């Protein structure tokens, strides 16, 4: 008697997409808590900072002549998106290698480490689009948006998050301990970036000697783009510059991540 296997090799994009399908099977079971934490948490910030604290902030040159809630609504979305992206690319990625070991299970099939990485990044992007949309919609009745540019803000949020997800994924792929370094990433990179990269106030308020810290932070580039697409006042050339910064961050991160995924899964 002889057996003939039904298994086939899956094309590159298909393999990554099948991973997304797998994540989706998981998400369908656990979506409630996720939607709450990722979509509604930034809304709490919008209420507290935009409407509460913002009531004490007069519209002026610093806010581009806008009310404070309009000023921070786009940036809050981008900032939350970035935090989500980093969160999804730390412990969940390490778990794929170390605890749950699903990356090991999947690379025993025709799916390759590169496709596993691709699946992760696509999945993170979809999650960011979803979470951003939830926030954008729920923020409507609070008068957060001036125009339909809000839709583009969701896209900018996902792009900014993805740009950060790639290098953080690379970092997770080279983490062999319990992931203590992720705390450092949150405390010393994400947290300061959230506070000082132009989300709550313009970076012109930062002393010139330290302003370069904002310039090299992806969140500032994302915030500038997000405000540009809904509030206006952003010229084409700076916009392209911001995009280029995020694109380079993504490309470098993705290339490193790809190398580390192969190094860790093909041994």
């Amino acid at each position, binding site marked *: *008697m002889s*057996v*003939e*296997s039904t298994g086939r*090799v899956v094309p590159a994009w298909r393999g990554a997409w099948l991973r997304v399908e797998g994540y989706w099977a*998981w998400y369908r*079971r656990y979506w409630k808590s996720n939607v709450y934490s990722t979509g509604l948490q930034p809304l709490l910030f919008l209420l507290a900072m935009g409407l509460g604290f913002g009531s004490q902030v007069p519209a002026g040159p610093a806010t581009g002549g806008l009310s404070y809630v309009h000023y921070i609504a786009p940036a809050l979305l981008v900032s939350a998106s970035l935090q989500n992206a980093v969160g999804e690319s730390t412990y969940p990625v390490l778990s794929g290698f170390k605890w749950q070991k699903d990356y090991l*299970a999947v690379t025993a*099939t025709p799916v390759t480490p590169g496709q596993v990485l691709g699946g992760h990044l696509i999945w993170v992007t979809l999650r960011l689009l979803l979470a951003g949309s939830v926030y954008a919609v729920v923020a409507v009745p609070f008068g957060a948006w001036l125009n339909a540019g809000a839709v583009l803000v969701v896209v900018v949020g996902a792009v900014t998050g993805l740009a950060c997800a790639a290098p953080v994924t690379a970092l997770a792929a080279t983490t062999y301990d319990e992931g203590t370094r992720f705390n450092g990433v949150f405390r010393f990179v994400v947290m300061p970036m959230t506070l000082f990269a132009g989300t709550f106030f313009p970076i012109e308020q930062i002393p010139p000697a330290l302003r370069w810290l904002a310039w090299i932070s992806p969140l500032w580039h994302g915030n500038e783009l997000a405000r540009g697409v809904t509030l206006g006042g952003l010229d084409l050339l700076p916009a392209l510059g911001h995009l280029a910064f995020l694109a380079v961050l993504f490309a470098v991160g993705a290339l490193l991540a790809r190398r580390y995924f192969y190094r860790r899964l093909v041994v």
Partner: protein
Amino acid sequence: MVEAKALVKRFGDFEAVRGIDVEVRRGEAFGFLGPNGAGKSSTMRMIASVSPRTDGDLKVLGMDPNIDGPRIRARLGVVPQQDNLDNELTVRQNLQVYGRYFGLSRAHVRRKADELMEFAQLSDRAEHEVEPLSGGMKRRLTIARALVNDPELLLLDEPTTGLDPQARHLLWDRLFRLKAQGVTLIVTTHYMDEAEQLCDRLVVMDGGRIVAEGSPAELILRYSTREVVELRFAPGEEVPADRVADLADRVEVLPDRLLLYTAAGESALEQVHQRGVRPLSSLVRRSTLEDVFLRLTGRTLVD
């Protein structure tokens, strides 16, 4: 199915596999027997086409894993040493999601999942999450998952380590069925009873090398005697090896035991008693692969 020549795997300075020759034929159950650290798992990972060889030649299903890894993996089933199921998905979802990675259609994996849950006796757990299942059930699910693409070659790394006797027998029974269906099996184990139960042919590995090859019966015939007399002594008591050495073809001295290898166990034991040697307990048994391993390496398989 598998052809390895002078196969080597090095990790830095450490040489895990030191030039082995192996040939596995279609339809047989082939075993790698050896203690932990013998190089069994490294060999399995190379055959599974997830670990590139350092040196030598390797063909799996007629292809080179370095070139055709995905094409080979499409036709393999892999049961790793540690279960890596998705604990947060249900039993059914684990099978369906995994099947999709082999390019199978949704309808196909739905059908296949039902069939495999039946096979693994997990049908009544179909909608249960994996996390709370028992070790034996998880193991059966891992094996079911490895069958989702109807593999021609199934690789099982320590399939029953950590399972209770009942769970082991149930699992062995499933593996026999697969073999009867024509699936080629490659098993690594450090249990000699498992190797004897499952394998048509096996190699004994030690320190990255193959030290013997053959069917379990052949190996026992070649490297051991038909029977063994085991004499157990109290801990600390001197084991009187020289007083009985001439009664057997060969004697092995273990810390608290003496093994006499002989064709006729009962008569040897009788003579032991006649000479006034009084062990705590004694036992006459048939030779096993454990004895073969002891003979070949001077060590026992499981400490």
